[in-house]
């Protein structure tokens, strides 16, 4: 925990108006060994809280520090980093893949891969989906996104009350994935899992959607191999984003 205190001190120092500081200056100011300071700075640099000037080698606060509390990961960056894993998910599951993140209490679709049957489909990147009625939304809600104040009903199966929603999200946290079974559109289902970045923070969700008969068995349970495909893809993206293996 000492290292967290020291990291906080480094950030305060850099935020203190001194502008760019060298490794030596930071170590001297905080009375730390250069090696220790260097280790802290490298970790802070990795998460984007600190930036190093390429020419002088001096350190300053990073852009991620200024964006704390707003967007954590640029949505176009999220797409770019997950594209290699979204394609195999579509191929293995035979279903359309979407990646979503939170925007103003809704799910923003940041990436969409067509269902691989070469039928006519339209890209819906940029469209918004309700949080409580989609697997993507529930995966995001379960790990920290703020639930919507009013729960609009889309079908008879849509989660209707905050209590029901809280129970559903608990279940998501227990099993690590989410589903919507005819909760947004009759005849349609979706399965999703969270995408994590550094430190395990959930930055998005990846999932598949399609006809309920294809995604679910005769008892309306999501098919286990599809759930496994979705979770594998989510883990692969998370690994690329720097989340620890779990």
């Amino acid at each position, binding site marked *: 925990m000492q290292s967290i205190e020291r990291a906080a001190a480094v950030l305060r120092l850099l935020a203190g108006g001194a502008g760019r500081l060298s490794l030596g200056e930071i170590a001297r100011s905080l009375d730390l060994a250069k090696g220790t300071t260097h280790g802290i700075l490298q970790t802070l640099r990795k998460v984007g809280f600190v930036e190093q000037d390429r020419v002088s080698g001096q350190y300053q606060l990073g852009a991620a520090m200024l964006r704390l509390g707003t967007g954590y990961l640029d949505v176009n960056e999220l797409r770019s980093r997950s594209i290699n894993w979204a394609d195999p998910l579509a191929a293995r599951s035979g279903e359309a893949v979407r990646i979503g993140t939170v925007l103003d209490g809704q799910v923003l679709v940041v990436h969409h891969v*067509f269902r691989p049957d070469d039928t006519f*489909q339209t890209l819906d990147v940029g469209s918004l989906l309700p949080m409580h009625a989609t697997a993507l939304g529930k995966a995001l809600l379960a790990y920290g996104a703020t639930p919507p104040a009013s729960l609009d009903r889309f079908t008879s199966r849509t989660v209707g009350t905050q209590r029901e929603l809280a129970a559903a999200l608990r279940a998501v946290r227990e099993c690590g994935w989410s589903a919507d079974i005819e909760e947004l559109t009759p005849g349609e289902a979706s399965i999703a899992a969270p995408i994590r970045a550094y430190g395990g923070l959930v930055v998005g969700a990846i999932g598949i959607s399609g006809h309920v008969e294809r995604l679910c068995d005769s008892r309306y349970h999501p098919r286990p191999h599809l759930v496994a495909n979705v979770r594998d893809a989510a883990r692969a993206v998370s690994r690329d984003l720097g989340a620890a293996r779990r």
Partner: protein
Amino acid sequence: MTERYVVAIDQGTTSTRCIVFDRRGQLVSLAQQEHKQYYPKPGWVEHDAAEIWRNVERLGPEALRRAGATVDQVAAVGIANQRETTVLWDRVTGQPIGHAVVWQDTRTDTMVSELDTEPGADGVRHRSALPLATYFSGPRIRWMLDHHPGLQERAERGEVLFGTMETWLIWKLTGGLHVTDVTNASRTLLLDVHTLDWSPESLAFFGIPRAMLPDVRPSIGVFGTATAAFPGVRIGAALGDQQAALFGQTCFAPGEAKCTYGTGSFLLLNTGSELVRSTHGLLSTVAYQIKGEPAAYALEGSIAITGSLVQWFRDQLELITSAPEIETLARTVTDNGGCYIVPAFSGLYAPYWRSEARGVIVGLTSYITKGHLARAVLEASAWQTREVVDAMNADSGLALKTLRVDGGMTADNLLMQFIADVLDVPVVRPLAAETVSLGAAYGAGLAVGYWPDLEGLRQNWHRAAQWLPTMEATKRETEYANWQRAVSRTFDWIQA
């Protein structure tokens, strides 16, 4: 039954990757390692071929480990490689002689412009179907023979071998098989593109001894069996990276084209068994050859600066912190505000070929924000594509109906939509962004019967995304005219 796989080695300019593919052509695992870039003088770019081989030796087993597979589950290995990069090595010790001279390297420019005016130059151009340019391997071999004392004599005695990267890797993988494929050989200036063998006249023109050259083989067909990295596995294919991408996109029919959007971009159009000589500044090249079949040819248009313009925007202007953020910034505005960026950083390539041109930003007013600049950056890639497509349509007499795209920049939806808008044809991304590796894997799998035929490979191709043109024709024409006016402002900047 145990699952069997095909492995692709993608030996690129900045990194080497080993990728494991399954029967559906889907990526199972990937291992990647960058290698060092050497810039000993301005315009010089070198790689250490020994380092690249060490990376392949390590990445192969690593990719298999990540796939949870063993080497006996690998049906075949295919190679896709950076083209025109020139390696010389000692036949006995296997040690590279100096660093490999990379395709971007322009050290041969004086020599090439001298050779260009010599009497035999027309013959070289005709037989190779290429212009005499620093881009290709032949002049690099000449340069290396001139600059290492005693090397010419050793080469004549067969003690020194030449290869592009696939030749070097196959030699290392098999412990001494010295072969190349027709696509890589077609980028040397030394190949006769009709006989598909080295031209004695072209070799004489450059003074390159035949003894140092590898045997030319079809791109797809078993080259030999690996004894290192993938012991016991057959090497089923080798293709230059852009030809591999064309194959990976299953552009097997004349008229089918793909564009790979990376640092630079490469548009290749399959012209079938007929070699089309460009009169609009494009290159003619071998697309692929399957063993026992005639070669397929292609027209190629290369755009020097596309992704690297985004990198410039990120690293030199520091207006974004990561490349994908260009789209975020571009979406802060609804149009380019009248601003155009022509990235003629080292002259203009196809279809202009103006080496004295330099980049411009035009249409600047006090209204312009960094958002407009970001738009202009993305639009520049689209307009450059349009110019190459226009040249291809003119050369081939075919009008492009659909553009298949791949590469890192296909993640940029704004760019892909804009390309569809300015070409006025649908732009389609397949369900496998790694088409370079996939092409090598497809070729290798085809050679050993892992996949039955080209039709079987076509079945694997699926549409993952499609962008349809939405721009009005009048707007497209006005914008294109503006772009062309911007391009004309770059001409004659460097004065002789």
